[in-house]
């Protein structure tokens, strides 16, 4: 029976499981909420994986990587770099928009981190920001991308503070700003935050993380902003977990 490797990405919002084979192929994926008090959800998922595959090693990553007894622990930046490289072994720049942070990684062909940037404290411009603001704007997350596409507005949320950003949204609602304009404006706010980060536009750009999985229109806006083609790998939400599973294999 061949060996399989598990990567678990315990992110700030969701925990992603990835199982890969000896050839770095993603053979199984699953996602559960990280913040659930019900720890059984996590345990059950892992048992399901163990029932199905002969697991050799486990690598945990993400904010909660140290809260699980695994064979190795690696940061989500290292795993993102290895994960994208499993699919695209080239010198590249990865933009990973997660629940609480944005990371820019200059990544080598073998997955080595050559340089990186991540925000330190304020999480404005990340997944949690979108979720909070969308709620105030009475926008369904699943509809945001479709709505935003139909607007041409250039308006952005000015405040860096999520709480004050919500007040701005309130003002827009008072002024009867169309919902599609609000949707596009929220995305443009994310783009203006990415604009100040050291994105290497001379390299192939890959976009991954949970946010892009739920907000596909962001790809077009970021591409437009930097005037470059952008690739969103398949299963972009699981790229970090995939990278972790590949690192688990290397631990052997």
């Amino acid at each position, binding site marked *: 029976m061949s060996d399989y490797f598990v990567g678990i990405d315990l992110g700030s919002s969701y925990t992603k499981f990835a199982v890969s084979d000896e050839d770095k192929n993603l053979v199984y994926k699953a996602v559960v909420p990280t913040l659930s008090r019900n720890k059984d959800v996590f345990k059950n998922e892992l048992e399901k994986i163990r029932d199905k595959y002969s697991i050799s090693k486990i690598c945990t990553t993400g*904010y909660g990587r140290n809260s699980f007894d695994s064979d190795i622990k*690696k*940061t*989500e*930046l*290292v795993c993102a770099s290895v994960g994208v490289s499993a699919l695209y072994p080239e010198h590249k720049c990865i933009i990973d928009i997660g629940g609480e*942070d944005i990371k820019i990684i200059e990544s080598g062909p073998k997955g*080595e*981190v*050559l*340089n*990186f940037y*991540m*925000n*330190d*404290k304020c999480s404005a411009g990340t997944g949690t920001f979108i979720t909070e603001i969308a709620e105030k704007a009475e926008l369904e997350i699943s509809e945001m991308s479709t709505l935003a596409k139909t607007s041409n507005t250039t308006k952005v949320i000015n405040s860096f503070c999520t709480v004050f950003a919500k007040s701005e949204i309130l003002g827009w609602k008072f002024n009867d700003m169309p919902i599609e304009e609000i949707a596009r404006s929220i995305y443009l706010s994310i783009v203006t935050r990415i604009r100040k980060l050291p994105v290497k536009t001379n390299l192939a750009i890959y976009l991954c993380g949970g946010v892009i999985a739920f907000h596909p229109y962001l790809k077009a806006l970021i591409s437009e902003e930097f005037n470059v083609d952008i690739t969103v790998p398949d299963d972009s939400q699981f790229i970090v977990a995939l990278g972790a599973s590949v690192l688990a294999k290397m631990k052997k």
Partner: protein
Amino acid sequence: MPRLQSQTALKNILKTYFTEMRSPIAWCTSAGPAEILRALGFDVYFPENHGALLGASRIAEKYIPRAHQEGFDGEICSYLTADIGAWLMKETPLTKIYGLESIPKPDLIVFNTNQCREVAEWFSYFGREFDCPVVGIFPPRYLETVHKADIDNVVAQFKNLISIGENVIGKKLDPERLAETLRLSSEGSQLWKKVLGTASNKPAPLSFFDGCILMAPIVVLRGTQICVDFYKDALSELTQLVNNNKGAVADEQVRIYWEGMPVWGKLRSLSELFAQNNASVVASTYCNSWVFDDFDISNPLESMAHAYTQIFINRGENTKLEMMMDLIETFSVDGVIFHNSKTCFNNANGRFGLPGRLEKETGIPTVSFDGDLVDLRFFSEGQTETKLETFFEQLKG
């Protein structure tokens, strides 16, 4: 048990320093002309040391909000806000550690803005509180080249300080005592340099986190025999470790330069994080701030003016780059970490593009993280850990 015996010896030295401090007492900034004050006959107390203590003992968060109430902003020096807050609440960690009733009462307060303007506001506040004379030394700032006119300027201010100090103490400054104090300062400082220099060995026997503890005497007892003796012993202990090939961290794999202030409340956890990742902080601007090569007993005031005006924090960006490059070479550094200390504008040196220029000049990777010297509200544990661990991975290749 501390890893180094010197750390145990230090505890007793500091106990004696604090419990035997007697009037007349002068307060002084850490890179101020303490030698003049000691030679005049003052015992010298350093409020920055108190600020660091408030940070390291993680009680500052109790006091900082009290200073905010008084109108001291949340984004100014957290040594200042923690220290003034503690004063307003009539508390000090010196009570618990050394049995002191309060911080020592000053007879003269002296600051040097070679490090920042915040010390002027901080020390002047206490001048008003204690109705005590305050003397500020205001050297020319951010110098690339230090000119004779700059030194003459500072010497004139030292002479004014001496005259005010003589009035407070009621007697003239003895030139021989000044020369002797300066000789001891110089010897202590050169020994401190050698102590730090032991980290140029591979593996390094001491890290920045050890240095932040061992530096106390060169700050608060500079110009005394106690300071000299302490660093003689420390040097001998560290030399022994070098001879035995014993590193501060097990299996040293990456050698780091730490730029900026320590995060006093996180010294231990950061030290452990580095050790777990086989990363040793072998050099820092901070610990090197008390290495003075210019003290000259035949020319005390001019040489002191030189020493205290040409410190890293008082220099222009080009000079800072050169000073860092020197240390990076001497200590065989693999990567540089810039601590962007949010309330220490003057010693957060990554804000004007220095990391990028350093990378370009040396090819050595850098990373910056947000934090603070004392106010841990500016420090994000998870983010910093992720950032540093990724940096270590990057350096290991």
